């Protein structure tokens, strides 16, 4: 018992240090060369210099966004995995991210077409509606399809349908503002503003804290519904809570950064292997930190690998994390809950 607590502490400390290191690395790399000294200088006295501008208004919000949203996405995946009682689940592979994307695109095109400037809250709300809708479809399917791998295939198909419709909507929308939509619809942290960062910070922070406080019933749910009920957990309530929390988190990510592939499914798996436990009280903070680190690094690669041309973040996360998902699909014996 003692050794596992100590192990957790060490893992958390190492992850925090890595995250801070990634933060400075992310500030330093990019199309314009900036040294660590410059970063400190501009953070300490934000003057009106060229370096400071790049750091504060372009890189800083982007990096904070990658941290918050990457963490949120992983926790969302972890919650979905508990809901389905299966490690092969995530907002992207179940089509939830893509459905959120579709709803954001539709409401943007519609509102911008009518000359209304869209606020971040409206984006999050439309993404949330899209998430819930896809979640409903997946849940209906899960009653027919008991095999989780097949359910993932269905989810991927839902994702394709939503992406196709999004493409259609974006292509035929003539407003110039919508040009930006194309980057976003593939998944990108570019062009994220401080306002977006602030809104997502508030939503994600509140949701993560609530999720963490729900660790106890979420942990009971891991033993299956019947035993959880016998422990005194209100099953209906916890199911609704799991759906709402994971949908809010993935919707926030999609609203501001578009659909980011495989982080939600792969990071919880990596964290379980690292922490050697599946307990929510450890896994929720671990997934957040791990997701933040991995997303931040992938974003750095996305904007520097072929600089000045940027590639979408999903392209990077796919290359690194899809193999993890393939491993999960192949290596795990399908276990079903009777």
């Amino acid at each position: 018992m003692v050794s596992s607590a100590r192990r957790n502490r060490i893992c958390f400390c190492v992850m925090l240090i890595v995250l801070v290191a990634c933060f400075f690395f992310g500030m330093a790399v990019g199309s314009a060369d900036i040294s660590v000294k410059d970063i400190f200088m501009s953070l300490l006295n934000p003057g009106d210099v060229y370096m400071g501008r790049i750091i504060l208004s372009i890189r800083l919000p982007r990096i904070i966004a990658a941290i918050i949203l990457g963490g949120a996405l992983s926790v969302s995946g972890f919650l979905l995995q508990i809901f389905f009682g299966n490690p092969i689940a995530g907002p992207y592979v179940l089509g939830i991210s893509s459905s959120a994307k579709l709803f954001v695109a539709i409401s943007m095109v519609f509102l911008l077409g009518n000359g209304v400037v869209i606020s971040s809250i409206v984006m999050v709300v439309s993404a949330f509606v899209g998430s819930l809708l896809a979640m409903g479809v997946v849940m209906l399917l899960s009653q027919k399809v008991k095999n989780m791998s097949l359910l993932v295939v269905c989810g991927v198909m839902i994702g394709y349908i939503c992406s196709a419709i999004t493409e259609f909507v974006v292509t035929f929308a003539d407003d110039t503002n919508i040009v930006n939509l194309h980057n976003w619809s593939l998944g990108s942290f570019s062009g994220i503003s401080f306002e977006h960062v602030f809104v997502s910070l508030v939503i994600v922070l509140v949701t993560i804290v609530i999720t963490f406080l729900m660790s106890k019933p979420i942990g009971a749910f891991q033993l299956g519904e019947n035993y959880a009920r016998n422990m005194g957990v209100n099953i209906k309530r916890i199911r609704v809570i799991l759906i709402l929390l994971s949908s809010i988190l993935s919707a926030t990510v999609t609203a501001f950064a578009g659909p980011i592939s495989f982080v939600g499914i792969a990071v919880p798996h990596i964290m379980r292997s690292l922490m050697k436990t599946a307990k929510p009280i450890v896994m929720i903070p671990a997934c957040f930190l791990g997701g933040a680190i991995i997303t931040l690094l992938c974003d750095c690669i996305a904007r520097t690998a072929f600089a000045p041309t940027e590639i979408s973040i999903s392209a990077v996360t796919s290359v690194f994390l899809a193999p993890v998902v393939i491993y999960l699909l192949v290596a795990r014996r399908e276990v079903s809950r009777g």
Partner: protein
Amino acid sequence: MDNSVSLDNLKVGYGKNTVVLQDVNLSIAPGEIVCLIGANGAGKSTVLKTIVGQLKKMGGRVFVNGEDESDMSEADVAKAISMVMTERIHPELMTCFDVVATGRYPYTGRMGLLEEKDITAVNNAIDLVGAAEIAAKDFSKISDGQRQRIMLARAICQETGIMVLDEPTSFLDLQYKLDILRVIKKMAKEKHIAILMSIHELEFVPAIADKVVGVSKDKVFVTGTPKEVITGANLEVMYKMESGTGSVLCEGLWNYANSLTRLI
């Protein structure tokens, strides 16, 4: 009215229309072990699942410690009834200790952290079922027999006055059966826990049961002491055996049962 269950005209089944058993009237007193026997599919598990709230009852009432179960909160029921069901659980990366510790859920605080007294209760339960040496092992890597012991320990450390056990001895070897039944009997006699269990192995019933309930078709067919219920005639009805075969079977069964009674 502590540690008691009574079923009043209980009607159980699946969904809205599939009635499995009806008119079930039964009471279990503190320290009493009641065994449910009957053919496969006769509805033993359905009754147990209904009592623990896994299935909605179709009619009648369930009284737990004198209180109508439908008026009780989930948390109160959790402190009153523990269970070991036949359903397999697949917890990930949990040691046997962790699995047993989930029985402490109704007693731990907001974040579910184990306190000293919880850890003591968990360890005591593990010792009681004789599973101390596997406590630190991964739950998914132990044998069926060990798993059943761990699930029983989990129910024990939930410290409830009522235990519901669905076929706790199935799939175990003889020694494991004896061990588990000994623990169950000890819980009833020493801690005055009311125990309702289903069991297929009739030879073990006389050793542990105070009362036996035989179900057949959609009714409780017979209730009484093991001597009254396990008779050739009753077995022929419950298990749809040819007439005359029941008494042959019973003769040998009671011999074996008497030996087992001396061992449990």
